[in-house]
């Protein structure tokens, strides 16, 4: 873990000596592996990388990354990360957070870090449950979720991380799945390359308190019919042999699933994915089976100046090296008492 991290690094170089303490079978393991594999590909330097997390199972993540790491307090990672970036804009800052951490106690910091467009990557491990505190429902839990605090089922509408991020003015929103070891690196890469706040929602299985909550979209038997993998500029196709697609319901601001070849539908009727269209993104963000497939990949990416850019610009004008002499004696409001 010592020595400058330059040259060709491997996943192992990003691994610490700390025993990983998630439950056996937890989806977090796959995500960890994927991040450790992807960072070398991004060519980042270990000493230049900081993982910041809140509290939760997900938030243990930094302990397992041999970069700089800060396991902070519940919900506040975006605020701490903002301070880190303000103090040293050259650092690569990754936030790791859970659905409770990010969307319950930390909801306000999340929307503000997105709105300000601070240049950080946010990995939101959504397992639709509070793992660390033993299984209470979270803001992403579906209505009716039975949990220790809702023995008769929850009566709240779940929030969509992606829709909220878009509503808050986020400029990069993506979604992936813990087990998608092939696709996730691509998405992490896109998030890293995006200058500004990048939100990546990762559907993550908590096999202890919410096992198989995503099986209706991740099970092998249904995956191909219920996952739509977005690619900018490509038609919104899914299903075996791209047999299905999305089109705009004629005359309405709505998306509908259609089958190629049925009712005269051809490839040409299928909408083309445009990452830069916020409205399309809002529609993709909230799609749910069975009516529609779940959108995975980069839902929205439309870069804008970052918060750091604005701050830097004002600081450059100010230069930051003025003398204490000028501070204390500046202005014309001093006088001298002779000895």
């Amino acid at each position, binding site marked *: *873990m*010592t*020595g*400058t*991290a330059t040259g060709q690094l491997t996943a192992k170089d990003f691994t*610490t000596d*700390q025993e990983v303490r998630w439950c056996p079978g937890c989806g977090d393991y796959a995500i960890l592996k994927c991040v450790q594999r992807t960072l070398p590909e991004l060519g980042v330097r*270990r*000493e*230049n*990388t*900081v993982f*910041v997390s809140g*509290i939760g199972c997900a938030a243990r993540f*930094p*302990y397992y*990354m*041999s970069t*700089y*790491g*800060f*396991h*902070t*307090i519940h919900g*506040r990672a*975006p*605020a*701490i*990360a*903002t*301070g*880190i970036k*303000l*103090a*040293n804009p*050259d*650092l690569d800052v990754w936030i790791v957070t859970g659905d409770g951490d990010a969307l319950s106690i930390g909801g306000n*910091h999340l929307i*503000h870090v997105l709105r300000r467009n601070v240049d950080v990557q946010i990995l939101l491990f959504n397992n639709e449950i509070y793992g660390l505190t033993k299984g209470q429902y979270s803001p992403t839990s579906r209505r009716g979720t039975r949990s220790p605090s809702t023995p008769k089922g929850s009566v709240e509408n779940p929030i969509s991380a992606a829709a909220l991020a878009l509503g808050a003015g986020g400029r990069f929103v993506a979604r992936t799945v813990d087990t998608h070891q092939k696709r996730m690196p691509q998405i992490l890469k896109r998030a890293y390359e995006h200058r500004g706040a990048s939100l990546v929602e990762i559907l993550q299985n908590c096999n202890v308190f919410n096992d198989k909550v995503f099986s209706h979209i991740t099970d092998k038997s249904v995956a191909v019919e219920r996952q739509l993998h977005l690619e900018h500029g490509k038609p919104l196709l899914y299903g075996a042999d791209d047999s299905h697609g999305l089109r705009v319901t004629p005359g309405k601001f709505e998306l509908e699933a259609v089958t190629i070849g049925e009712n005269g539908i051809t490839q040409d009727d299928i909408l083309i994915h445009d990452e830069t269209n916020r409205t399309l993104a809002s529609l993709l963000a909230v799609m749910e089976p069975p009516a529609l497939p779940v959108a995975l990949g980069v839902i929205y990416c439309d870069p804008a100046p970052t918060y750091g850019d604005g701050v830097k610009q004002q*600081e450059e004008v*100010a*230069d*930051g*090296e*003025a*003398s*204490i*002499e000028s*501070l*204390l*004696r500046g*202005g*014309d*409001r*001093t*006088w*001298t*008492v*002779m*000895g």
Partner: protein
Amino acid sequence: MEGNTAAARSPQREVVEEVVIRFAGDSGDGMQVTGAQFTQETAIFGNDLATFPDFPAEIRAPVGTTFGVSAFQIHFGSHEVRTSGDAPDVLVAMNPAALKVSLDDLKVGGMIVLDEGTFNRRNIAKAGFDSNPLEDDTLAPYQTLRLDISKMTLEAVKDLDLSKKESLRCKNFWTLGLMLWMYDRDRRATVEWLNKKFSKRPEIAKANVTALNAGHAFGETAELSSNLVGFTVAKTDVAPGVYRTVTGTEALAWGLVVGARAAGLKIMLGSYPITPASPLLHNLANLKAYGVTTFQAEDEIAAVCSAIGASYAGALGVTSSSGPGIALKTEAIGLAISTELPLVIVNTQRAGPSTGLPTKTEQSDLYLAVYGRNADAPLPVLAASTPTDCFEVAIESVRIATKYMTPVMLLTEGYLANAAEPWRIPDTDDLPSFPVKFRTDPEGFQPFARNADTLARPWAIPGTPGLEHRIGGLEKDSVTGNISYDAENHQHMTDVRAAKIAGIARDIPQQEIQCGEETDVMVLVGWGSTFGPINQAVRQAREEGHSVAHIHIRYIVPLPSNLGDLLNGFDRVLVPEMNNGQLLTLLRSTYAIDAEGLNKVSGKPFRVSEILDAIRTRMGDAS
């Protein structure tokens, strides 16, 4: 700028040693500016002084109401001045409401300068007078100078092509001109200030200067023709040097910048607006050129967290707020304590509880500072006692935070933040230097290995090759910083966190007696802005022959190591505080002494007389 060439002396000037003037008017009347300019000219003239700005809670309260009155009190003299004065000698009242709220405070026999032009039926009723105070015997106990200032101001600027409203806005400068004449002060700094301030609207500058001169001329003329008397307050004998006036806020901002420079760091202030702490944010927001970044966060929690993040990344994280906002930072401060990161937390205290009286002053967050965290989570607490003291306390806070890798709580007060006093600007060469050494050597690096002397852990910042490590709020192994659930380790870490803070006592000055002797019978122990009234009261009591001393504490946690012995030397310990007995609790528990409190929680500073009375009561006749 230099010198204090006073206006031509008039033969009739009465010589006085000191005077307390209160400027009072509607919030729209510009009383704060008037007071500040009078202060500036008085300081330049060479008097020691203290001020007390007191403005309404409302942004723009309805015109003419008592709750919309804005006041500015200045106390200056030819000797040392310690408080803004118990009772004004002179009241400048720009309208009936201003008269109404200040009358009770005025010294019997004191002088009232009032703008007769505003004493119409409507205003008189709004102020809550049953009848016109100019016509009944309300003003009998005072010398009253009734002037139609409104009219005279309009007259003065009538050629300047301003609207009536704009013209009337110059009233305060007319009044200022008169008062500057009355106390034989220069007008130059004010003229310069006006020209600069309104450089884009020279007609406004001109009108105000004209009014200023007219007020001054009125004094000179009336003096000859009437019973108007001018006064002379001789210069105070002060150390030579370059001076300026500063508010506590300015001194604090500059102290932080100087401290950060001494440490070789940039400042990252994370803050969220709140009365009366916001001026520090505003002040620092203007100091980008001095290596200051300011971040107005979405709330106080984000504010302190951003500052913690900044410290983690190698800047000096600072966060500022007032009571309710500091309360919100409680959890995050625990994280800074646990991860042992430097951080300066400024609490500009206001009156509480809850939202309380945001614009009123109090010193009731000592409990919150010393004890207000979950679990055993000690941190150093320092308190400023005067506006200029804010400068040094800020530097000390930065020194301790960076040397000991700890958050430091700096207590100041709404009163100190806004009050001004003259300040001898230190020589830049005399400023301290305590450069931070970030850890860079990977050899043998352990995030929680401690400096044997200070018990501080190394500051190893992201970006440094080979020092990659993880920290967090869970209990850590005492060397590696890895999570540790070990029972002995937790005991050890708890002990060492306490020992580190306690050990700072070796690195701060011994407590001095501000006034009096170790052998006196009674000691008054204070902290914060009560310095002035306590000191003044003790001096007067000593003159009356009472064996009483004054100790004023800057280092609240840890307390100076000799304080216990000092206190034990007195028969009686009295602790005046603008709270219900918070330092008192700390002293009683630390030294198991039967100290007694003298408490005032009214949103107003102590009067000297209140403390003096308390001394007299306890000491009986002079012994």
